[in-house]
């Protein structure tokens, strides 16, 4: 008995340590998270997903979409680009200077010195910050994913395998709901050689009534139903697409800074 107690105590200690580090500490640090300001703006982030999108997350969960899709953009690094806004009073000096300087893909220190030198020559510059990495280059997002992106989700569907592309920012990347609906119904009608299973059970194939449904999919002949029939999305399909549309992580935050691609201009 005594030995059993020793094992129990020691195991309990180690388990408490692991629980404290990987459960309690994250909960204390992130469990009370709130909306945060979007960088250089008065907007806050994130906003709760609209009702249909929240229902769509449940469709996403029930059908195990996270088995093949991640929602976590990876970022390898961060780079600064120095952009000339106005040449100022001495354009030739500025352009001579520009020819000698490296202006893209700089680290923060060299971006600062480059912009200082151009400013000293009279040019007006802006330092733009952008995330780097293969995910970013593919257009899967503008920055790495952070805890705030999932603040209102239950369950959080991060996924761990990329049989399909990352979906963290898909609402910005593929903003057309009709494309999404058709892709769910017949992935290979839009992406050749896709291995995504079709989700035909989220759609209803029915006889066209007196008036064709405005929601009916506009399918290419190879995938279209028999003549006189139309394919109409069930509510689940609409909700799932609403969820996909709501996946937007394209705002800069303090913990994921970047300069938005379309700056504020008159």
């Amino acid at each position, binding site marked *: 008995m005594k030995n059993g107690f020793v094992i129990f105590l020691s195991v309990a200690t180690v388990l408490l340590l692991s629980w404290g580090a990987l459960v309690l*500490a994250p909960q204390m*640090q*992130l469990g009370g998270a709130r909306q945060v300001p979007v*960088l*250089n*703006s*008065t907007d806050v982030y994130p906003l709760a997903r609209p009702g249909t999108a929240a229902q769509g997350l449940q469709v996403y969960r029930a059908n195990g979409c996270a088995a093949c899709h991640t929602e976590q953009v990876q*970022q*390898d*690094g*961060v780079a*600064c680009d120095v*952009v000339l*806004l106005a040449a100022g009073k001495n354009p030739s000096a500025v352009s001579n200077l520009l020819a000698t300087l490296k202006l893209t893909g700089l680290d*923060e220190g060299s971006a600062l010195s480059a*912009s200082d030198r151009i400013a000293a020559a009279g040019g007006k*510059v*802006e*330092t*733009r*910050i952008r995330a780097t*990495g293969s995910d970013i280059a593919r257009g899967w997002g503008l920055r*790495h994913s*952070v805890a705030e992106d999932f603040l209102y989700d239950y369950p959080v569907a991060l996924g761990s395998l990329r049989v399909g592309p990352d979906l963290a920012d898909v609402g910005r990347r593929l903003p057309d709901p009709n494309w999404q609906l058709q892709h769910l119904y017949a992935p290979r009608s839009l992406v050749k050689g896709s291995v995504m299973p079709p989700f035909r059970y989220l759609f209803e194939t029915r006889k066209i009534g007196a008036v064709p449904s405005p929601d009916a999919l506009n399918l290419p002949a190879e995938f279209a139903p028999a003549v006189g029939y139309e394919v109409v999305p069930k509510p689940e399909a609409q909700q799932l697409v609403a969820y996909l549309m709501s996946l937007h992580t394209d705002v*800069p935050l*303090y*913990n*994921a*800074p*970047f*300069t*938005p691609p379309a*700056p*504020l*201009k*008159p």
Partner: protein
Amino acid sequence: MSDENSSPKSGTEPTAARSHLPMWTLVVLLTLLYLGGIYFDHHSGWFDRQVYAPFDNAAQLDAYQPKSGAAAALAAGKKSYESVCGTCHGNDGIGKAGQAPQLAGSEYVITRGFNRLAHIPLAGINGPIKVAGKDWNMAMAAMGMALSDADLANVLTYIRGSWGNKAGEVTAEDIKAIRASLGARPQAMTAETLQALPE
């Protein structure tokens, strides 16, 4: 039954030798702890909740916050606005009853140009004025006189670009010109003189 059953000691329970742990296991453990410790020191951000990979620490994250161009103007403007203007107009730009009218959606803010807007902080304003459908009759001192051209430009840029306002940027050179045109002791504006100015 499987062949092992014929093995001589299969009926008896196994025993364990009592030889002690060799030194090298501890050496390996300590070496790995040291290397791992260095890795953790470099890449963990030391438990800072804001530091995510690929950033290594809070100082690095700070260095990569956008700080020039339009974004930086907005950031600087927000700071000055909240210390100078926000107490009356509200940090959310919706104004405060009995203190100052709203700036969000105000017809004096979301104009095409910013000539009228810039005159208010530079000259002050008093008398009756209608803002976003509400009547006001208050006085505002020339709060902007104490700010530098660049600071005031940033504040106005921030006001014109926040809380749903989508008007354009204000530059320090423009403020400098307007300030020069007003002279050293400008007359406070009224709704009428303001309307008389070009946009």
